[in-house]
């Protein structure tokens, strides 16, 4: 049996959840159903949206903000960052443009968070 404490982030209430793993997974402390769903997701496969920057060339901006188009496994965050730290992008860039396709085989693309014109 394993006990894990979580804070639900589905609403401002911020319920303190206690997740008990035996055969099934039991969730305590949630005031509504969303709390249980949140806890199950956090236990089974926590995922996050990644936002960071990549090197931008040929623009007055030195860095281009990027984000993952969907959520990626939390365990892969740092690996993705390492990957993106080696990426260089050339202006012009359009918001939403795919910067890295299917990053680390997660099925998720990394896209540009903004447009950047190239230097005149």
């Amino acid at each position, binding site marked *: 049996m394993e006990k894990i404490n979580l804070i639900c982030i589905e609403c401002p209430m911020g319920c303190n959840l206690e997740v008990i793993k035996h055969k099934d997974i039991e969730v305590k402390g949630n005031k509504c159903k969303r709390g249980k769903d949140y806890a199950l997701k956090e236990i089974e496969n926590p995922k996050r949206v990644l936002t960071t920057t990549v*090197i931008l060339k040929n623009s007055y901006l030195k860095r281009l903000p990027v984000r993952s188009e969907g959520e990626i496994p939390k365990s892969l965050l740092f690996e993705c960052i390492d990957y993106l730290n080696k990426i*260089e992008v050339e202006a012009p860039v359009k918001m939403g443009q795919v910067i890295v396709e299917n990053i680390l085989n997660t099925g998720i693309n990394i896209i540009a968070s903004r447009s950047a014109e190239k230097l005149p």
Partner: protein
Amino acid sequence: MYDVLIIGAGIIGTSIARELSKYNLKVCVLEKDNDVANGTTKANSAIIHAGYDAKNGTLKARLNVLGNQMFDKLCRDLDVPFKRIGSLVLAFDDNDLNTLHKLYDNGIKNGVKDLYILSKEEVINIEPNVNKTVKAALYAKTAGIIGPFEMAIALAENAYENGVEFRLNSEVIDIKKEDVYVVYTKNEKFKARYVVNCAGLYADKINDMVSKNRFKIIPRRGEYYLLDKSVKLVNHIIFQCPTKLGKGVLITPTVHGNTLIGPNAEDLEDKEAINTTREGLRFVLDTAKKSVEDIPIGMSITNFAGLRARTELDDFIIKEAEDSKGFINVAGIESPGLSAAPAIALYVLDILKSSGLEFVRKNNFKNKRKGIIKFSDLSFEEKNELIKKDSRYGRIICRCEEITEGEIVDAIRRPLGATTLDGVKRRVRAGMGRCQGGFCSPRVMEILSRELKVKMEDIIKDHEGSYILTGPTKKEVD
């Protein structure tokens, strides 16, 4: 070989350098730091005292009163902000009243002009915010406020323009007396006929390299609050009656329109202890409340501490070492050192003269220094004319103080120009305002980086080692 070598580029060293630059002499200033005015000169009350409190007959009294009178012309010539706003010493009880009269009498003896004892009503009339329990005040019309580091920077620039050499980052590590003095820094040695020791907190260390007549500099820390410009508490420099530890906590407008509150006084061992303390700041605030009850301390924009270089003597030490001819100490220059500085310079020249240094006036001495244009002080038309000539004046970098790129570039490019973030701040006030550089420091660093052709991560705040950035977020492959 130099005629005179000055050690220390604070307000005293730069005052003497500028005075010497009027004559045909080869003069050099050695400064251990990377900028002038980077020690006691940059953190003090910024007051030009009238001169009523130093004990009659002392050097402090004489040079203060004399120095005070010299500031109008000096500040006009050097384009330095200075305002004679007058000072008040408040009395709250009979003891204080007694002190006021003693100060008044002492002031008259010292030769201070325009001293008056004001009644309660007169005090409240000109200072509506002072504590209503005030009984009377000593009013000294000749007291003033100044930008102390602006003053030292201006003196240095003018001295430089008139031929004085400046060596920054040049800490003196030894002095040997041969036929002349040989002064050693880490990488260089300098020969000079005369050495003037203006090393402030370290004047004892320098003296010990030459003379057997020792003295000890005791760093006395003073902590201050600086309030936002929107706060208007007082119109004059407001003192309380002096105590054993000095003139006590004052409240004053600064020459740039902020309000300064402080200092306390604490004798220390550490000559680098320019940190503020919770206790010190609380003492300052609690004591200041005796003068003005309602102090909006939430409007504080910064707090800082400075160290005064005092000695056991109750007076300045300004004399030639008895056992080493040509070595002149200018030490223990605590308050009223800033007020006395111009007179100290003249006094040191007299000592040099009587020690045999020949003074021949330069006929091409430039007594005026062109300061950095203050864009916000210009008229509508002047602003536009300036931008037409140089578009960088059309770009505000520091929003709080309204400082343009043109001014910052000037601060960097002029002789003995700024090389650090604080160097820019001391010259043009970028980062001195209510956001304390939050908005402008990235911009100022960019300008420094461009003008000095150094990497962003190599720009420092102030002293060596005060790096701001640790490097780029990603490694670029070139």
